[in-house]
């Protein structure tokens, strides 16, 4: 019997993937921007909750209590790592030092939790900075998007994402922890957590529950947004741009501008998904965990399976691939262990991790190849943008057809 907290966490994780896939579908499915850099945008949201907001929080706390940083210089366990460092030095470099970070974040969390205004300020900062970072990166990327052909652009986005996440953020320790874990803030007021704690079944942490609620709200909002855009004149123009951008410029549309807007919106949504992931599923943030397989290729497989340029379709695709992936992660290791033990090979923990990763990679590849070969339109195919109610449209068509006969 699987425990309730695990089910809730998996549910939250699945909702995060649904948000990411909806954002990807907006950019790639509708607008035809082959975003192979999704991992970067999700990671940047995670960075906003961890490395970035911790700095904002320490500045804020130090303003309210000017002795806070001074206290860090003299009290253990901070003083060994912080020493006589300047304030700027501490804010920029020391907060992500694992020796400081793992003590500092819980302390900041309890200070934030005690004050509702502080919680609201931190939460606002997290959301605003995730949107701003996502939009800025989307803007930078779209400058290349204007000039490059689709296939080149896909490679550029992949390289851009790998370079920043797996090289810059993963190797430069002071920015976001680099090789070490950094902890994310939990910006919820303690009163809320306590009163929820009394209501929730035992074992379910209030943070997880609140995170799940946030995930549900963001997933529904994203679905409403993308569906309304899809069924507006904008949705139609995006699909036209995907099909033939040159023809669309001949009909007066500035494609560079459209791409820029789509990239900014899509990237911001992906960054918010990163925020939700950290708040509900994984509070320990490490750049190397945000791999291209998990956050780029799996969302692509979900989108292709569900049906490109169909929001409901890609949600179905996300659910199927997510559950399939979980099943494989559960079933593959024992199966391999059994097979390998038959030929006398001993299986270690490290081998099991590799088996999990490899089988998931195979799953992604198989889905993409099979769907594109057998049913390229996916489970739920693309539909015309429903800008007018069906009845109105049909009566218009009938009116014109009637006048011809």
């Amino acid at each position, binding site marked *: 019997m699987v425990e309730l907290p695990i089910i809730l966490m998996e549910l939250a994780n699945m909702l995060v993937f649904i948000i990411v896939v909806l954002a990807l579908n907006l950019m790639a499915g509708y607008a035809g921007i082959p975003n192979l850099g999704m991992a970067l945008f999700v990671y940047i949201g995670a960075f906003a909750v961890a490395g970035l907001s911790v700095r904002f929080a320490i500045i804020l706390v130090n303003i309210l209590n000017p002795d806070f940083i001074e206290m860090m210089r003299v009290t253990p366990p901070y003083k060994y790592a912080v020493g006589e460092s300047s304030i700027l030095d501490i804010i920029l470099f020391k907060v992500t030092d694992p020796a400081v970070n793992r003590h500092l974040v819980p302390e900041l969390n309890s200070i934030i939790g005690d004050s509702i205004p502080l919680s609201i300020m931190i939460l606002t900062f997290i959301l605003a900075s995730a949107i701003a970072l996502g939009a800025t990166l989307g803007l930078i990327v779209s400058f290349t998007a204007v000039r490059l052909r689709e296939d080149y652009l896909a490679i550029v986005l992949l390289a851009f994402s790998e370079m920043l996440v797996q090289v810059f953020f993963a190797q430069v320790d002071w920015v976001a922890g680099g090789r070490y874990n950094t902890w994310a803030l939990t910006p919820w007021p303690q009163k809320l957590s306590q009163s929820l704690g009394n209501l929730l079944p035992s074992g379910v942490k209030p943070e997880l529950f609140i995170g799940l609620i946030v995930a549900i709200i963001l997933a529904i909002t994203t679905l409403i947004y993308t569906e309304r*855009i899809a069924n507006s004149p*904008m949705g139609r123009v995006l699909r*036209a741009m995907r099909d033939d951008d040159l023809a*669309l*410029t001949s*009909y007066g*549309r500035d494609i560079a501008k459209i791409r820029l807007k789509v990239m900014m919106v899509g990237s911001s949504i992906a960054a918010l998904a990163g925020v939700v992931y950290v708040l509900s599923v994984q509070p320990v943030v490490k750049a190397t965990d945000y791999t291209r397989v998990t956050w780029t290729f799996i969302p692509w497989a979900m989108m292709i399976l569900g049906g490109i340029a169909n929001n409901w379709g890609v949600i179905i695709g996300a659910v199927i691939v997510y559950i399939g992936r979980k099943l494989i992660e559960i079933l593959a290791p024992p199966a391999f262990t059994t097979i390998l033990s038959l030929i006398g090979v001993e299986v270690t923990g490290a081998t099991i991790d590799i088996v999990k990763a490899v089988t998931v990679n195979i799953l992604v590849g198989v889905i993409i190849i099979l769907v594109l070969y057998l049913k390229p339109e996916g489970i739920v195919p693309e539909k015309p943008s429903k800008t007018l109610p069906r009845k109105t449209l049909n009566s218009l*068509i009938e009116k014109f057809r009637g006048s*011809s006969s």
Partner: protein
Amino acid sequence: MVKINQVTDVILEVNKVSKYFGSLKALDDVTLALPRGKITLLIGPNGSGKTTLINVISGVLSIDSGSIIFEGRDITRLPPHDRYKLGIVRSYQIPRLFQGLSVLENTVVGKDGNPGEGMIYGLLKRIWYNYEKSSIEDALAKLLFLNLIHLHDRRPGELSGGQMKLLELSRSIMATKPKLILLDEPAAGVNPVLAKEIMSMIRNIRDELGITFLIVEHRLDIAIDYADYAIGMHLGRVIAQGKPKEVVEDPKVIESYLGG
């Protein structure tokens, strides 16, 4: 012979325009003018530079030298979408249809200026609903005229070659305020009866709205009766211009078609 340059009311001037593809001179020092509110036919054998000229006027290709003046304004450096906003609309010889869109949607996209085309405005239905409804009515009227209305919900991939040409045409006549429409072989692959209807529709549009047309067409038998002027091209150069009959009977034009 009447030189088109002598016509006083000119909508578009092409001055000494050259365009190279590597060492190939696709347009060689081309100078011509299009009279406002007239239908000008652009003729010439394959490879004479007709489509390149359309691409250059619509901004799809940039030029290597020369200038293009539209209503007294130098548009040489303007991107295609800005030229469209000035009123220059074009169709493509090989239809460039939006494959994922229905026939009706393909036509509606031809109309610019929908207030709902934004990542935020798209959400506000009451802002764009009336515009959208009238665009769709407009598009249905075009589809009805071009005999495509029964195919309104099909994808372009399901159409015949001639129907694709008609759909391409339907998009270009959707433009909000066109002044100059460049049509690249609108009647190719279309049956003669419908081809004549298309040409007479073009003439009606010219008469009613005063729109200027530049039409590339090989079907001279059909097109010639509807044109006001004609320009003959060969090997990237303008070799004749004037009244359609005169241009068609020009020895240089005849020679070029015979492979001279």
